[in-house]
């Protein structure tokens, strides 16, 4: 019986094998899977961001479901008239009576709504410059946040962390000294206002050695991470090769290999003819 799970399993296997087929060569299966990924991702992200942020936190503050007994006036009637109109377009986004979550209308949230609409104006070349106002807000706020965050945790705390624990045993002391030397020499390497010659050059060379060990460790971890992901994919393919999924992996693998073979063969023939 065709269930959503079974159909999903076959889709999943097809898309996985389609992406993996790139290992042979760039081919129609890979291109198809890649384009589906691009389209679905865009729709997926738009939906998530709308329902988790825009609807509850923006519209929810502009048109909250007010508690019973709240005094309303002409402005309120007008304002919620707009809401009712929007409710006709989408009753899911704008349910009757207002959006649950906040106790009062915050008109100041018209500012991010307007800035958000300005952001979308980027699509229209003539008024695309309006997006700069919205981008300016994001850039300004990110700069302010990062200034403090990085200065505190990444600079000051790390400098504090480089102190040597003299109360520890010999190995702790030695390790602490190595860390301090490595940190200082590594930082010296990145100082390009002075030529790396003489003693300074030798110290920055020591810094490079520490950095190389660090990069080697990063490489090792990177390999580890990628292999882990591959294991995850293969696990799913093995699961979907089972009887309950009608051996999806085997069927689709066989069909794709056959079609790739035909594609490669016809491609080679075309190349030979063109060369001739």
């Amino acid at each position: 019986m065709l269930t959503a799970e079974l159909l999903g399993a076959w889709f999943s296997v097809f898309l996985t094998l389609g992406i993996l087929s790139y290992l042979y060569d760039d081919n129609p299966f890979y291109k198809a899977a890649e384009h589906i990924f691009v389209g679905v991702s865009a729709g997926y992200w738009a939906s998530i961001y709308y329902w988790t942020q825009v609807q509850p936190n923006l519209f929810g503050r502009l048109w909250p479901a007010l508690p019973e007994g709240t005094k309303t006036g002409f402005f309120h009637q007008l304002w919620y008239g707009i809401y009712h109109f929007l409710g006709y377009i989408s009753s899911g986004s704008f349910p009757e009576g207002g959006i649950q979550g906040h106790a009062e209308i915050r008109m100041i949230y018209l500012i991010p709504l307007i800035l958000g609409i300005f952001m979308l104006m980027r699509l229209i070349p003539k008024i695309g410059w309006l997006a700069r106002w919205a981008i300016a807000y994001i850039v300004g706020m990110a700069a302010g946040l990062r200034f403090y965050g990085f200065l505190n945790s990444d600079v000051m705390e790390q400098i504090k962390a480089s102190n040597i624990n003299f109360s520890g045993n010999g190995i702790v002391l030695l390790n602490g000294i190595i860390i301090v030397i490595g940190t200082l020499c590594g930082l010296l390497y990145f100082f390009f206002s002075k030529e790396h010659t003489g003693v300074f050059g030798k110290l920055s060379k020591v810094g490079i050695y520490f950095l190389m060990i660090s990069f080697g460790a990063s490489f090792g971890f990177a390999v580890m991470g990628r292999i882990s992901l591959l294991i995850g994919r293969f696990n799913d393919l093995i699961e979907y090769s089972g009887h309950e999924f009608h051996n999806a992996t085997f069927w689709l693998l066989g069909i794709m290999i056959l079609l790739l073979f035909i594609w490669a063969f016809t491609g080679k023939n075309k190349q030979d003819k063109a060369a001739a």
Partner: protein
Amino acid sequence: MMKRQIPLLIVIVVGLITLFGHFFSNQGIQNFVDNDSTQWYDIIASFAIFLGALNLLKLQLMKIYKKQNNWQYSILAVLGFFFALFAGFLYRGAYTVSLSGVAVENHQEVAGIIATGTHNNVALITAGLEGNDDYTIPMVFMTEGGAEALGEDLSSYGATVISPVQWGAHLTVKLGNSGSLFWWIFNYIFTPLSATMFALLAFFVASASYRAFRIRNFEATLLLSAGIILMLGRVPVGQMISPWFVGFIFILAMGAVIAPMVKNKFITVSIVVAGIAILTVWGVLTGWDSTRPAIFYFPVLQEWIFNVPTTAGARAIMIGIGLGIVGTSFRIIIGLERSFLGEK
């Protein structure tokens, strides 16, 4: 002024307020910085995502319209986009069925009906019925008809209530092995594509390691050695490699390194033989302990490399990047950095 000065003014004012919000104790400013400003940031960031999605749609549609290279695949991109939007905004595809008032003597029968209808485990469902008077069937139905069909089968055993999942919550609702249409797209389309794209890199890393990773100088040797020690030491197989074996390989490798530097081959051979002899005697005296010498035991060696030289290098990079970001953030806040406006 509208295109340059006002955005700059916004950057400066917002940047200063955000930064000094850490240091002011004014209630109004603190409230704005801690609550509203972050909410505005989130909201505008969401619109940036919408912009990206719409831009993508525009580019793909242009490609189809102009029949550019591989335009046929763009149809798939557009279809995928609208399918995801359909599941996100137009078709909820998430109904739950709850059952109450089922007599105890009917639990087994009801559990059987539910198990057949939802492809679930009978024992688990029986346990659920026994534990809850108001039992939610562990399945999300994508169609109201599907939910109603099961509800009808169960109507003679108790009261059934079919409820649509709230908009918003429909994105992630999952019961048993089923979820909404959006969840189905995430689980069977987005997840395999996303995961496999990253998994491809495993092959390319292996290929690059084999074809390009060469010990051309001392720095490359350090990089390679650290990488290999970490790769082997971090996995269980690293514990199974005898440190004595590694020790002997190390001595031979040292011999190979010093051989070109020492003209007298006899000295080189003597050093290597002496090293092997010392290691052998040490091994015999310690009974060839499987975790000693620690300096050649991969798990211990990788832990030291991880905790000491790697930390030093990473810390140097972190402080360097931190200083760079602080400098760039300051330049942005005072209006010197204008690259976000498209200016140099």
